């Protein structure tokens, strides 16, 4: 790879027009909607509409909200043979990888954009067999769902460029996986809230709470790496404290019922939070919901750059949450004061109560949050920076092909010849 390409990559410079007519395959996990999938779909829509790329979204499992959104956006999607589950048998895994590579090759991609760790590893392993010109690893977390050192190492060696949506995600790539620092670029998530379908009053009426009720919301699917448990324990304390002040407090948990929702409801029962916690499931009108809320909360033990926090910030809400690198990066220095150590329900309750009792502080923090989203986490910024990485990857592939071709290398010629 030429040094000029590297410079462009690191600086974010580069042409964006190279994707006109290019076939881009975005590989996500389940065809359900989570933070990473939302970003993938936003990017896909942008590449299709604004750059004229031919975008397809590949996922696995039962088609869910992600598939629905693809259809809304006019993006093709398919259930693809993503090699899951990762088998202990190397032969089985090899067979699955070959099937995946064949499927990709048949789709004749120019660019492969895997999102999340597992998808990035398997795409990294096979992309050179697919005829694609570039593959960009998208690191969205701090190393969940590891696949084993050998597969990861090989995938890293084969993948040309890496995007992480947070500094600590980039740190994981560099420090834990041994990726060259100059190949990793931090591109923050882009957040833009859709216009609300219903306003504050309508939402509160639907929830059966009055305007004087203190309403907090955590937007996150109910999964193991979120720490709703600590939040519920904290909420028990919050309810007690605010009741002493004569205020009712209700916590809304908005997110798909994944593996933890049964245990969380049982915990809410045990904590006698029947009236003070609502499990809303997946909410379509997140903007409307957030407009009805007084505070964003987010408790997690493993985060890249949590969309649940960013969305609350975009809605102008103050956020109390776990003091975790991804959340720190999201809220920025102005929001650090409202973060509590991981797993510390008492401390989290204190942060929530402090904000609950101080409307002015909430408003100030909310406004700062909204400004931070507009400068640091705007979708336009995410699109531009991602495109520059894709462009760099494609130019890198072209120059590699030219070099190989000049040297008579048949493999490089084959790569260039396809396109």
């Amino acid at each position: 790879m030429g040094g000029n390409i590297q410079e462009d990559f690191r600086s974010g410079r580069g042409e964006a027009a190279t994707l006109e007519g290019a076939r881009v395959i975005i590989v996500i996990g389940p065809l359900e909607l989570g933070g990473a999938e939302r970003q993938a779909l936003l990017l896909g829509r942008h590449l299709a509409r604004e750059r004229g790329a031919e975008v397809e979204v590949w996922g696995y499992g039962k088609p869910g909200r992600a598939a629905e959104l693809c259809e809304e956006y006019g993006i093709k999607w398919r259930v693809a043979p993503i090699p899951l589950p990762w088998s202990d048998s190397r032969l089985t895994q090899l067979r699955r990888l070959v099937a995946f590579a064949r499927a990709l090759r048949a789709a004749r991609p120019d660019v492969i954009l895997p999102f999340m760790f597992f998808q990035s590893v398997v795409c990294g392993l096979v992309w050179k067999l697919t005829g694609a010109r570039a593959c960009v690893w998208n690191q969205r977390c701090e190393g969940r769902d590891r696949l084993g050192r050998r597969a990861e190492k090989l995938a890293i060696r084969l993948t040309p460029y890496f995007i992480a949506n947070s500094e600590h995600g980039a740190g994981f790539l560099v420090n834990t996986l041994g990726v060259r620092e100059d190949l990793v670029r931090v591109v923050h998530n882009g957040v833009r809230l859709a216009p609300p379908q219903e306003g504050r009053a309508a939402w509160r009426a639907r929830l059966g709470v009055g305007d004087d009720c203190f309403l907090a919301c955590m937007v996150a699917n109910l999964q193991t790496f979120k720490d709703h448990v600590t939040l519920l324990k904290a909420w028990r304390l919050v309810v007690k404290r605010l009741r002493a002040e004569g205020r009712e407090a209700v916590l809304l948990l908005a997110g798909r019922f994944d593996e933890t929702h049964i245990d969380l409801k049982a915990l809410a029962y045990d904590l006698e939070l029947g009236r003070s916690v609502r499990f809303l499931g997946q909410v379509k009108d997140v903007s409307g919901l957030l407009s009805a809320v007084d505070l964003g909360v987010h408790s997690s033990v493993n985060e890249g750059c949590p969309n649940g926090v960013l969305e609350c910030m975009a809605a102008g809400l103050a956020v109390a949450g776990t003091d975790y690198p991804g959340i720190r990066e999201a809220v920025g220095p102005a929001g650090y004061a409202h973060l509590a150590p991981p797993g510390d329900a008492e401390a989290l309750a204190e942060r929530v109560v402090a904000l609950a009792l101080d409307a002015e502080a909430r408003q100030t923090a909310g406004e700062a949050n909204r400004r931070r989203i507009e400068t640091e986490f705007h979708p336009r910024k995410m699109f531009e920076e991602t495109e520059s990485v894709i462009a760099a990857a494609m130019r890198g592939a072209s120059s590699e092909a030219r070099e190989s071709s000049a040297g008579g290398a048949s493999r490089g010629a084959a790569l260039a010849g396809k396109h």
Partner: protein
Amino acid sequence: MTVIERFRVSEEEGTSAGQHAAAAPPADAPSLRGVRVVMVIGQLELGGSERQTLALARYLKHQAGADVEVWGCYGGRGRVGEICEGYGIPWRVIPMPWRPWWGRAKKARRLAQFTLALRGARADVLLPYITLTNVFCGLTWKLTGAKVCIWSQREAGIHEPVGPRLKRWATRLTPWFASNSRHGADYLIQNFGLDPSRVCVIHNGVDLPAAERDRASWRAELGVGEDCLLAVMVANLNLLKDHATLIRAWRVVVDRLAGRRAVLLLAGKFDGEETALKVLTFDLGLCESVKLLGPVRDVSGLLGACDLGVFSSHTEGSPNGVLECMAAGLPVAATDLPGVREAVGPEGQRFLAPHGDAEALASRIVELAENPAARAALGRANRQRVETEFTYDRLGQQTSALILRALGRAGGGEMSDAHGR
């Protein structure tokens, strides 16, 4: 700790004072002096069957004068072992792990070990008390030197840890059968073609200990006032019980009794269903109206604080949870199952609802909730029924009579066969 700890009375009676008090047999008690009885249960932990075993063992030893031992087939000393020691009854565990998928050779080896252990005990009478030990003893008793084996049927074929062929074989080899309910007896006769004259119905015994705490104290701890309608279901939270229908019914009850607080108490060991039940309670918005208490030691005190017994189940032999409510003088609204019908008798049957029908169960509960006079009358009738039909003395006398009959000896008191004769 297993099951609801309703056995506090037994713990107290398991002291030397208790033994002394039980030492004088009544004049009409059939004598089993010199007869060596081995009662075989599963785990030495307290459940409904184990409590009946203990009460019977105590009767046979102290009232009938038999030489009694209690054997478990797995686990350790448990609460049953502790209580046996209090009663002065020897106990032991002969490890008998058993898996339905084992091969014949392995099963045969296990049974041979079991036979050898029993042979060493030189028992005259084997009294197995759960399905698995019924089968073990049925298959092996003739090789152990015992003179008789009495199969004890506790339900209508729901627990089937052994295959049907083995069970059928065991029933062919077993000479006598005692069932704690008529439908349990019918199950044996109809499914295994038994001669009805070999099958007796001997009801469970119930004897509530004195309450540790009074009504006001319990209500204060539960955070409910005297005007709150308090209902209780005493049963472990497992798959065989149907707490889910009861909780759904309770949603209807709370709605219909609008203006009056109504709280449902679920007293029983968390036995695998508690999480699902908590979630259901949460989803139905009943967090403040349904309380999962876990195991309760002072069941008598708890029942004394309640206005109504409720019981929802998929299957029952003779439900102790219903009998205890009846013994406490509570009316009972429950699932209409043969075992429950037999327990509550003709007077209580109109408050039974079809299995799985939450609306119907709610209607029965509301009918009782709104009519204190009917509650009081049914409660009195229930207490009277338990005192005549479901006492430990009656259990002991009828079992002693059956043993004597099986041994071919004269004597014995009243006893009914499967046809109620």
